């Protein structure tokens, strides 16, 4: 195959994800409403589409799996298969495998070599389960590849009626000019004396000349073998005819022929796969880029603004030779308005609904509640709240962790809940809403709340705090201990959460995107996690400071205060400068030294910017402040990725570049 499919992979992944999402939703619905035919239809449609898509792209394993799914769904649709809990679980399992496959494809541009045999076998067992007559395992397996249940059933019926069943293999003469026409004649001839119940390749493919020179048929007729041979012999341009009578459908005779064919086919496919993987190794670097689907209205808006820019440009061209200052100012004001709108419009293009993160939770909660034997009602609000694409990618894992936490540690078992007079079913609420330049995500549960004493005990045990500290710490402060590294309150390590990586990871992840997390809890009422994340990572508020004649930017989100400190109050303890800040000693960082500059401030009082990273604080010593400003973050690029203490750069109003300090690595 010469066609380079790589360029379509992006599209494939994007669409496949959409279809999988539909499948997921339909499945979850179906579990609650098993008789809903339209949901089954929807599932069938998705499986079918996925089969077609993956087939076209040459993702054989995916195509095979979806094909089997389709069979099962068809069975459910025609009420041949009962939609039991097991069947739904198996389909869920299929969904997981498909989801994994698509992710794999997104990452490597090719399918994993895993063949999902076990899962396919499960699907087949489901199919077989409804089949009244026992069919021998081996045989059925072979036939299943080519003869579906429908064909087998007809064959069986025909057998009972005493009709003959033939397996016919026809090889056309290589000189045959119009293969499909010739095949059509053969089909016509046969149909006049019996029924063709199966054809490989399919009749459609044969009509489209999508076959070499041979094809095989399963044919039912009253006539005998000789008569059939005579009929076929009368047709010209046939090289070979091989007719065998199917005495017993259950015997492996037909199977063996088909097995051979199947093996040949498999070999072909493998060869194809090899040649494709060779192809793809050459383009391995072309990883799937991040994409955003954009509403056409937004693009139109962008387009309009750009045309306005062009208009203002020509207007300014005209103005440049006349020195009419007033007109110029007016034009600049107009330009300013356009750039602001343009900025908004571009930001909007980058925005995606938070649904993309939320939509994985219904399934997760379903699985978790089964696993933990807890009954949980998940409610989601504000799924259409929009967040920058880059933020979306970062927020998923922390949220999963928190939701798992709420279900595992928060919600009690149904018995305990009843004992406490709570409804048997626990509630987890996932809510998102915009708040200024931030988006707030809340995870609320009505479980047992945080066990303050338990946290205290654990923290002492883990030597995070001392006994004395435990006495004086407020409840609020104790709750923040949950975010300390290595803290996990679960008595035993469960599969669900509490693998040792705990909320500290969640916190640092959220802080890495300039967000924050708070915890609010009341015993026996529930726990609430409040996450604040910026709308976008591309533009932030920053404080510009001066070190000698260099200008640096410090993200405002990590600044707690700007203050001054007298020279004398700075203490040096074992090489570390320390200063007193609000009753606490915090380290003081001489930025000059960090940035390789000389410190030449002779004043008695120094200016410091107090920054924090989680619970840690530090004072950064600067020469002077320039002011607060909205800055556009520019990456420093791959070449400078190893440089310490910097997280990026920004371009100032005068066109100069200013560097952004990475507070996390400085503290």
């Amino acid at each position, binding site marked *: 195959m010469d066609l380079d499919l790589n360029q379509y992979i992006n599209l494939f992944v994007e669409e496949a994800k959409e279809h999988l999402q539909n499948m997921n939703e339909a499945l979850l619905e179906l579990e609650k409403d098993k008789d809903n035919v339209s949901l089954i239809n929807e599932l069938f449609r998705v499986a079918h589409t996925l089969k077609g898509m993956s087939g076209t792209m040459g993702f054989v394993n995916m195509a095979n799996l979806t094909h089997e799914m389709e069979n099962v769904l068809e069975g459910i649709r025609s009420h041949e298969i009962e939609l039991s809990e097991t069947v739904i679980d198996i389909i869920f399992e299929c969904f997981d495998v498909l989801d994994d496959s698509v992710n794999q494809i997104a990452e490597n541009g090719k399918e994993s070599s895993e063949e999902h045999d076990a899962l396919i076998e499960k699907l087949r067992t489901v199919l077989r389960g409804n089949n009244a007559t026992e069919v021998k395992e081996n045989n059925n397996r072979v036939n299943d590849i080519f003869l579906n249940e429908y064909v087998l059933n007809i064959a069986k019926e025909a057998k009972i009626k005493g009709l003959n069943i033939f397996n016919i293999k026809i090889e056309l003469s290589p000189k045959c000019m119009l293969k499909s026409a010739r095949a059509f004649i053969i089909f016509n001839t046969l149909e006049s004396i019996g029924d063709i119940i199966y054809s490989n390749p399919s009749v459609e493919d044969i009509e489209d000349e999508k076959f070499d020179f041979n094809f095989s048929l399963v044919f039912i007729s009253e006539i005998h073998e000789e008569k059939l041979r005579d009929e076929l012999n009368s047709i010209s341009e046939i090289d070979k005819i091989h007719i065998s009578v199917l005495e017993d459908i259950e015997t492996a005779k037909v199977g063996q022929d088909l097995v051979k064919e199947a093996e040949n086919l498999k070999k072909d496919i493998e060869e194809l796969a090899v040649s494709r993987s060779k192809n793809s190794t050459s383009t391995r670097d072309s990883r799937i880029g991040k994409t955003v689907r954009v509403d056409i209205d937004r693009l139109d808006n962008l387009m309009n603004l750009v045309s306005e820019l062009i208009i203002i440009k020509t207007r300014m061209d005209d103005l440049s030779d006349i020195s009419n200052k007033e007109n110029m100012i007016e034009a600049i004001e107009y330009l300013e308005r356009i750039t602001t709108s343009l900025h908004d419009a571009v930001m909007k293009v980058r925005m995606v609904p938070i649904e993309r993160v939320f939509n994985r939770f219904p399934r997760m909660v379903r699985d978790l509640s089964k696993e933990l034997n807890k009954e949980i009602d998940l409610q989601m609000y504000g799924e259409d709240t929009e967040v920058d694409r880059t933020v979306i990618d970062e927020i998923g894992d922390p949220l999963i962790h928190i939701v798992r936490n709420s279900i595992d540690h928060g919600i009690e078992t149904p018995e305990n809940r009843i004992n406490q007079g709570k409804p048997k079913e626990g509630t987890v609420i996932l809510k998102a809403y915009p708040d200024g330049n931030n988006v707030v995500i809340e995870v609320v549960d009505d479980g047992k709340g945080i066990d303050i004493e338990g946290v205290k005990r654990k923290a002492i045990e883990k030597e995070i705090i001392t006994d004395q500290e435990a006495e004086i710490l407020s409840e609020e402060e104790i709750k923040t201990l949950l975010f300390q590294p290595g803290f996990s309150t679960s008595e035993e390590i469960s599969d669900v959460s509490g693998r040792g990586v705990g909320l500290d990871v969640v916190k640092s992840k959220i802080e890495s995107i300039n967000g924050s997390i708070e915890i609010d809890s009341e015993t026996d009422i529930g726990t609430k996690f409040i996450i604040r994340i910026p709308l976008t990572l591309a533009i932030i508020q920053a404080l510009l400071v001066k070190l000698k004649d*260099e200008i640096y930017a410090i993200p405002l989100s990590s600044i707690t205060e700007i203050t001054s400190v007298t020279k004398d109050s700075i203490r040096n303890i074992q090489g570390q400068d320390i200063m007193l800040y609000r009753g606490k000693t915090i380290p003081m960082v001489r930025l000059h030294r960090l*940035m390789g*500059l000389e410190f030449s401030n002779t004043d008695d009082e120094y200016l410091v910017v107090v920054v924090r990273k989680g619970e840690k604080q530090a004072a950064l010593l600067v020469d002077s402040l320039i002011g607060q400003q909205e800055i556009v973050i*520019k990456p420093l*690029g*791959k*070449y400078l990725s190893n*440089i310490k203490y*910097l997280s990026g750069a920004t371009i100032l109003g005068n066109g100069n570049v200013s560097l952004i300090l990475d507070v996390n690595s400085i503290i």
Partner: protein
Amino acid sequence: MSSDGETKYVIFKLNEEYYGVPIDNVLSIEKVVETTRIPNAPDYINGVINLRGEVIPIVSLKTKLGMEEDSINKNSRVIVLTENEIVVGLVVDSSSEVLEIDKENIDKPPTAEDNQYIEYINGIGKVSGRLIILLNLGKILEH
């Protein structure tokens, strides 16, 4: 890429020698502007500049190749190039031409006794009597 094994090179000068980089790697040639210093960066990184809204690191090719960096003059240029997803600007003394060099006219770099800079050279191109040092960008952009 042109046929017949000929590749076009952007030619520039460092001191009195001519150097070349494949034109496919070159994005643009700019005048030298003031850079913003990057603290804690290797000495051959002059800093970063704002190139039409993008922040681009500027590398002193002379320092990287172990030559003394002298003052930048009005002929100095920045060759902005890309290799393996990295975009950088190289400061050179002057740049004025593009030459086609046939594969056959490229000699292997001299195998001089331990010269640490020899790995930066892909080969020596010969064009009408001139010798042009062809740089190995991949190596040059390693730290």
